């Protein structure tokens, strides 16, 4: 029976030969993840189960990143609860500030993810790890609690969608634009309950960091997971992060898809998703004059070193517009260190940017750059819902890194070509 990578991983973890869409299965998990918002309720539920130990001390990852460094007393209490839980049950993978990073940037970078793994995380952007050929999906706190106790989780096998990208990328177009464009085409529920597989000659040339950006936003189309096949680029990345043994999984040529979408990327220019849905996309050239108060470069979507290099290319020798606050958030300690080594930090600070320690921070209106009433921000983050970055009457426009950097200089939504 022909299967996709997603089906193969689900079947293997359920002890089955195949997994058919709609089938309800129970799977063993390779990794369970939680952050400082979702772990506290999971810990409470875990204690209610009444078990004396977790299923595997090495397979649970606790990363306080949303309101860390603790933004107030209540946040500090939530992180404290995680710390005490980690100590009580001997969970080794608990990452405090100083060694932490935004969870979805940190885990691939530290070699915690390998192809063929089945991963659940109490964070919707857990779908990021599909970039490395893993089945990875977001769940809630109760699922996290149950998995910490049993090492298992139930799934309905999703239907499969395939996205094929061909053609030549236009200048300044990034992986972010491919995924924003795709969400713009199919809508925020276009892949609801379904698996999104990304393929084609354009994808073959994308770096792993770029693939992480695309997989990260599968959830913004309602997808259960986003996934990529394994190729030379995957292997090279895994060698660098010391992951050596993993299965080589591919979708069978005659695997069945509910739908196949073909996109010619030559027609895609940098995209801007207007408030208040990631699907509300417009080409940057048709954006008109939208004045901004803030630009945010970072997050689990676009906070890796590749992103920082793009930002530096635009900002080198330039000044942030006097009416704009530019906030740059390297996603991990390693990204920050690499920024210093490559001289990017100096470029950013001289340009007038504020560079933060790793945190989700403003992406969800937490801290480190919350918007006031009526303010507008352009951001490389993943959501532009009402009130997402602060006041319910503030606005977030989503874009790639180059556009967010160029807009910070121009004082309005702009393409690097406009500078």
């Amino acid at each position: 029976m022909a299967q996709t990578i997603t089906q193969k991983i689900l079947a293997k973890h359920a002890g089955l030969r195949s997994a058919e869409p709609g089938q309800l299965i129970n799977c063993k998990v390779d990794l369970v993840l939680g952050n400082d918002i979702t772990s506290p309720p999971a810990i409470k539920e875990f204690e209610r189960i009444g078990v004396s130990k977790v299923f595997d001390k090495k397979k649970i990852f606790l990363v306080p990143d949303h309101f860390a460094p603790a933004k107030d007393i209540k946040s500090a209490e939530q992180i404290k609860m995680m710390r005490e839980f980690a100590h009580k049950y001997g969970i080794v993978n608990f990452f405090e500030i100083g060694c932490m990073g935004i969870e979805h940037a940190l885990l691939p970078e530290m070699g915690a993810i390998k192809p063929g793994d089945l991963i659940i995380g109490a964070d919707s952007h857990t779908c990021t790890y599909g970039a490395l050929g893993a089945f990875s999906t977001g769940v809630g706190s109760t699922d996290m609690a149950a998995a910490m106790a049993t090492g298992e989780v139930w799934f309905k096998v999703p239907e499969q969608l395939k996205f094929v990208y061909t053609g030549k990328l236009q200048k300044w177009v990034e992986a972010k634009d491919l995924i924003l464009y795709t969400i713009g085409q199919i809508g925020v529920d276009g892949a609801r309950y379904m698996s999104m597989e990304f393929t084609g000659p354009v994808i073959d040339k994308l770096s792993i960091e770029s693939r992480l950006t695309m997989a990260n936003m599968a959830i913004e189309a309602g997808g259960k997971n986003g996934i990529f096949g394994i190729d030379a680029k995957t292997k090279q990345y895994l060698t660098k992060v010391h992951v050596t043994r993993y299965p080589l999984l591919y979708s069978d040529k005659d695997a069945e898809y509910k739908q196949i979408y073909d996109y010619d990327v030559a027609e895609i220019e940098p995209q801007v998703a207007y408030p208040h849905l990631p699907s509300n996309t417009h080409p940057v050239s048709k954006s008109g004059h939208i004045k901004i108060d803030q630009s945010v470069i970072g997050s689990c979507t676009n906070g890796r070193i590749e992103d920082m290099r793009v930002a530096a290319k635009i900002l080198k020798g330039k000044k942030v517009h006097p009416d704009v606050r530019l906030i740059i958030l390297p996603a991990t300690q390693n990204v920050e260190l690499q920024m210093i080594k490559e001289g990017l930090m100096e470029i950013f600070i001289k340009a007038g940017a504020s560079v933060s320690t790793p945190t989700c921070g403003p992406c969800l209106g937490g801290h480190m750059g919350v918007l006031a009433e009526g303010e507008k921000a352009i951001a490389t983050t993943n959501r532009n819902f009402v009130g997402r970055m602060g006041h319910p009457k503030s606005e977030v426009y989503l874009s790639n890194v180059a556009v967010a950097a160029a807009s910070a200089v121009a004082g309005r939504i702009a393409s690097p070509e406009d500078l």
Partner: protein
Amino acid sequence: MLTHGRSGHVWKFGNNIDTDLIIPARYLTTSDPVELAKNAMEDADPEWADKMNPGDFIVAGDNFGCGSSREHAPIALKATGLSAVIARSFARIFYRNAINIGFPILESPEAAEEIKEGDEIEVDLTSGTIKDLTSGKTYQAQPFPEFMQKIIKAGGLIKYLRQQHPQLR
């Protein structure tokens, strides 16, 4: 138990009601249900949590609960005393979370379309029958697969696990 019928008035919301609208991140420094309930639906309707009465229903369009995985969203709604959410469709993580915490949700495109704000409705959660007492119409929601019904009947995933795996204790 969720097996008895419930009745109350309807609050209508549109498509793509995301979890930031249901409970904004600025309130996520706690997971206390009573605290969360005070700010439920705040960015969609700032007065909703004060106006609504326990027993009421939300009737919404497509993709209810999209966005973040925060279980705080169904927890907040449940703690207001809301009887259930009826929608044309639900986002998948919200759907899982609602079942896992034993908060009733029903999928019915017809009910979502036709039931009006302020209507009084009665819902039998066992059969999935929705009666609009104001218009006199009756709707049948999509039944849950048997496995999910077991979780719902147990009162959520944790209680179900304790029943299924007594060895866990």
